[in-house]
């Protein structure tokens, strides 16, 4: 996920002003632009294709209803949307914890969520990679929601520290220390694989 450049940001602001005047198609352009980032972020947080799709779309609906409250001077559209999305995802996970299914159990039942682009066709290498891939997903699934979030934003969405800090509303130092804690947990859980 790359940063929102200035012309892009200006374009987003223009689209948002169109949406605020009632142009639903302008909102469609924003959704088309950010749908993949939204979906993959939700997928990393909740660990299920159907739930990620549902939550990311629901967050867009909520964002549309609340567009009147959006202030471009306080951050980009996606940063604002992300806050809605993460809260939807965290609420969803908390509700799910109250039910007799845990995130890690769901993570284990859906190991196909991660893939390693294969250039090597050697079955031994592929099997080994699949084993590591499943172990990584299980390890990520077992992290707490905030640790998982920071790993997803940095390692899977490719956000810079500055962007993560802006998104999570915290200093860069906090981003670095949260990343260290999350990676330490991850490393401990992957001890036999690395």
């Amino acid at each position, binding site marked *: 996920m790359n940063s929102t450049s200035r012309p892009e940001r200006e374009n987003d602001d223009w689209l948002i002003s169109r949406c605020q005047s009632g142009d639903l198609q302008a*909102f469609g352009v924003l959704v088309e632009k950010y749908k*993949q980032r939204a979906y993959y972020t939700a997928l990393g947080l909740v660990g299920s294709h159907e739930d990620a799709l549902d939550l990311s779309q629901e967050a867009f609906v909520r964002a*549309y*209803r609340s567009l009147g*409250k959006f202030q471009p001077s306080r951050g980009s559209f996606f940063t604002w949307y992300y806050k*809605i999305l993460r809260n939807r995802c965290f609420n969803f996970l908390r509700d799910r914890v109250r039910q007799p299914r845990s995130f890690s159990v769901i993570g284990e039942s859906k190991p196909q969520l991660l893939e390693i682009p294969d250039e090597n066709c050697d079955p031994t290498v592929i099997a080994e990679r699949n084993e590591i891939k499943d172990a990584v997903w299980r390890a990520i699934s077992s992290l707490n929601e905030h640790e998982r979030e920071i790993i997803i934003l940095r*390692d899977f969405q490719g956000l810079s520290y500055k962007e993560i800090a802006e998104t999570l509303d915290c200093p860069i130092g906090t981003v670095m220390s949260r990343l260290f804690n999350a990676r330490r947990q*991850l*490393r401990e859980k992957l001890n036999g*694989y690395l």
Partner: protein
Amino acid sequence: MMKLPEAEKQQFRMLLMAAIDGEISGADKTRFQQYLQQYPECREEWQRYAKLKEVTSTMQFTKPQPEVWDRYWINVYNRIERGIGWIIFSIGCVILLTYGGFKTVEAIIADPQLELIVKIGITAVIGGLLLLVVSVVREKIFTAKTDRYQKEVQR
């Protein structure tokens, strides 16, 4: 063998993360290299985290079917449209139910053939129902004001 002082561990960890993610430069880079040269435990730590980064950076999420992207906006659009539909429908219901309730109570009170106890009973049922609706609406508004999510939207 030199050990990394406790007081410097936090700084090293932050530099380690920045180095692994390619976000280190200038004086921080020099300081980080000094840590690696001075302390074997820092070198080991660096190697362990670099290996982890190597593994996670080769992975990506499985792509969904292309139809998912084709239908994505349509689904969002339908939800927005349905939401607007529900709001209009709810407003209509509230207006009709309020008017109907008022007219019913008016007719019951004016009906000379109905027993007083029946008039009181029906009025209480309608009044109670109205009170329940007001209570639910008030609760919804109160929840929205104190909801963490709502604050994020208002940002």
